[in-house]
């Protein structure tokens, strides 16, 4: 079942389009890695998927409804973005951050600690005092409490040691496997990302340069490299 569908989406800032005519789908329980060099349009794609940026052309549908500019409502319906700024509040405690995300009728705030047990001893600490890896864990925990059906993750690894990334990515995979969450994962560490993904999409200059299963992409590294640097496939 498709949970996120982008059809012919063109979007960007001001007069410059960062994403052009993009088609992308994510199915329930599937992890899709969105790869590409700096400025390829990865973050723009995620922001457009949740409605922070309105597409200039094309349509975004998530969970059967058209995504509009009312991001808070889209989030409550189960489309959750973990941005590269992490969307956590450094002035509040870990507990307050989690309580904000845990809504009435949903899972209790401490249920998120089951998947991320390393946060448990930190619940009373102010978020500003956590390490980068701990903050990223909190960002994931917060997203979890929003009961996502579509999870958009932007650069989980930003500013983190590869060891920390290795700990977080399996949590994302687990959400897809256990709860059937459809995940769109933007990542710089190509190998790590493809290691937990079902499928990979390489963007270049806002267009899809390559799309294949994760296994194929891991096997054919040259193709990924060419797509990264924008070489046309006819030049093979």
């Amino acid at each position, binding site marked *: 079942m498709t949970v996120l569908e982008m059809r012919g989406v063109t979007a960007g800032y001001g007069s410059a389009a960062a994403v052009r005519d993009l088609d992308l789908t994510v199915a329930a329980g599937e992890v899709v890695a969105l790869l590409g060099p700096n400025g390829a349009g990865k973050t723009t794609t995620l922001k457009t998927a*949740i409605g*922070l940026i309105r597409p200039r052309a094309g349509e975004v549908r998530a969970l059967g409804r058209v995504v509009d500019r*009312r*991001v*808070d*409502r889209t*989030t*409550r319906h189960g489309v*959750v*973005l973990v*941005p590269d*700024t*992490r*969307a*956590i*509040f*450094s*002035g*509040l405690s870990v507990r*307050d951050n989690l*309580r*904000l*995300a845990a*809504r009435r009728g949903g899972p209790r705030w401490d249920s998120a600690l089951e998947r991320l047990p390393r946060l448990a001893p930190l619940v009373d600490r102010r978020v500003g005092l956590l390490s980068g890896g701990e903050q990223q864990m909190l960002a994931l925990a*917060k997203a979890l409490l*929003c009961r996502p059906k579509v999870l958009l993750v932007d650069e989980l690894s930003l500013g983190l040691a590869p060891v920390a990334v290795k700990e977080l990515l399996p949590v994302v995979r687990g959400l897809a496997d256990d709860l059937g969450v459809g995940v769109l994962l933007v990542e710089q560490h190509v190998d790590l990302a493809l290691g937990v993904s079902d499928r990979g999409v390489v963007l270049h200059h806002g267009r899809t340069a390559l799309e294949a299963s994760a296994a194929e992409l891991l096997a054919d590294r040259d193709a990924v490299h060419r797509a990264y640097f924008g070489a046309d496939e006819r030049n093979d």
Partner: protein
Amino acid sequence: MDQLVLFVSLGFTVGAVYAVIGSSLVAIHSATGVLNFAQGSVALWGVWVAAELGTTGTLVLPVGELQLTDGPATIPVTVALGVISSTVLALLLHLLVLRPLRAAPALSQVAASVGVMLLVASLVPLRFDVTTTVARPILADSSVTILGAEVAVANLVMLGLAVGVALLLAGYLRFTRWGTATRASAEDEVAVLLTGYSPDRLAAVVWLVTGAATGLIAVVGSPSIGLDPLAYTFYVLPGLAAALVARLRSVLVACAAGLAIGSFQSVLLLLSTYDFWPVWAQAGFGDTVPFLVVVVALFVNGKSLPERGGVVSGRMPAVHPPTMRALPALLTLAGVLAAILLTEGSWRFGVVTSVIMALIALSLVVLTGYLGQISLAAMAFAGTGGFLLSRVTTEWGIPFPLSLLVPALGATVLGVVVGIPALRIRGAHLAVVTLAGALAIQNFVFGNPALTPYEGNLIADPTLGGLDLGVREGTNLTTIRFAFMVVVVVGALTWLTARLLSGRTGRAFLAVRSNERAAAAAGINVAATKLLGFGISAFLAGVGGCLIGYSRGQLSVESFSILVGLALLCTVYVAGITSLTGALLAGLLAPLGVAETFLESSLGLGEYYNLIAALALVVTAVLNPVGITGSVRAAITHARSRRQQHVLAA
């Protein structure tokens, strides 16, 4: 001792209003990042709606009115409708004005909320019979004895209400999920959105609650405080002082500080009745308290005040340095001279006032448009110039044109002194300091009988080499000689300022405006640049004040009231605060200038002048922050580039 208890408790009534306004400002700042200068106006409107219902049973709306009962309405009805009116006003302020400006620079937010403040203040005298000074009592007239003093129950009820409101607000922000989300939105609004909350809706809740609380405390307190068409507007200053003492974080501290300021002012009143109290400190001294509190609070914890985690920081209006072309300058000059020669009577007086006002507007363009320092005190600098002029000409006998220079230098000194806080304080906080300073100067200096004689400040006419340059001659309201003198002075100063702004100094100003750290890294002495800007601006305003003084022959506190200053700020902002042309246009639109003369004598609508100016300011701040000159320039550029494209295509 019993006297002290009595006066402290008397101060609770007005202190409670300060406290609730202060608590509200903290809560609103948490929710939206805005310092709302119009919170006192929210109180003012509710008070007058309730007062009118209490006397005639008429519900007055901004436009139109409803006759609810034949006689006075019952007390519960008056209080309820007063509170509802305040609440609706606060919500409208949020939805129509400040929400669209969420991502705008501090200047736009300050301008818009000052505009609303002025709008309400000018609407009240038009809509209500403001000769009424006493409101019908709401609270029971009984008293209890505390520490030997007869303390009115009403004062204690006010104290209880203020503390109750603060506890309610603090509890909401601290213990509820929405309250936590509100505090979180102060840090990062997009993150709140991505957690599934609408920052707009969270802010609306806070506006609603604080609007109602502010209305309630003011309406209930109004019988003791008295009715006044203006005073409540400026209760926002002690409120701001209290909020800043609380570092814009703690609602409870703000409440305590507000009550303390109210009681302290009341005790000052007690002290001023004793013999040892100096005469000069008898009048208006209480009004300096908020200013002193603001300065101390900002200086002590300036750095630790929360700054909004701006995800989208708004662009400031563009600046185009003056190009120093001769033709437009000469055409303007010719236009002004023609206007002087072709008019007479009140019209020529309007033209001359416009020219003078253009100079004061120029001082705002330099300080706020170019240097980016939001000052609401321009008129206080002008006033300093004018009042010094009175001393200089009547007591010291200094001749013209030195008589312009000395007061202007006095204003410059004051400007540099006011600029010193600006070395640590920026944006909306600086606006608070300058507004509090302007109010303190107005009430403590200009309005103080010990410093300013009752008969007004007389000013001797200027003469130069035996030539009488006085403004009046027989029945002639404005002599051509005086008008030409004004044009020469203003023209020369404008030319000098333009030279300054088009060169290295202007570039340094712009660098400081856009990013102080980057400017410092580029080798600009930020502190010296700021003080220079404040000095130049105060000098220009000071000369302007002198010219106003000469044009009137005498000055009173009304000549340079804060309302005139705010109305001038309105017109400069509307005309375009980032260009010299904007200053000239602002002169035309300024209070007592050509535009007001036109409203007054041709349309008979002079009383609507402030209302129109305030409305124009709000609309400009929300829809067109570059002002009239900015949008005209944009239109010209657009037309030119279209024509070029046509040429290229052909």
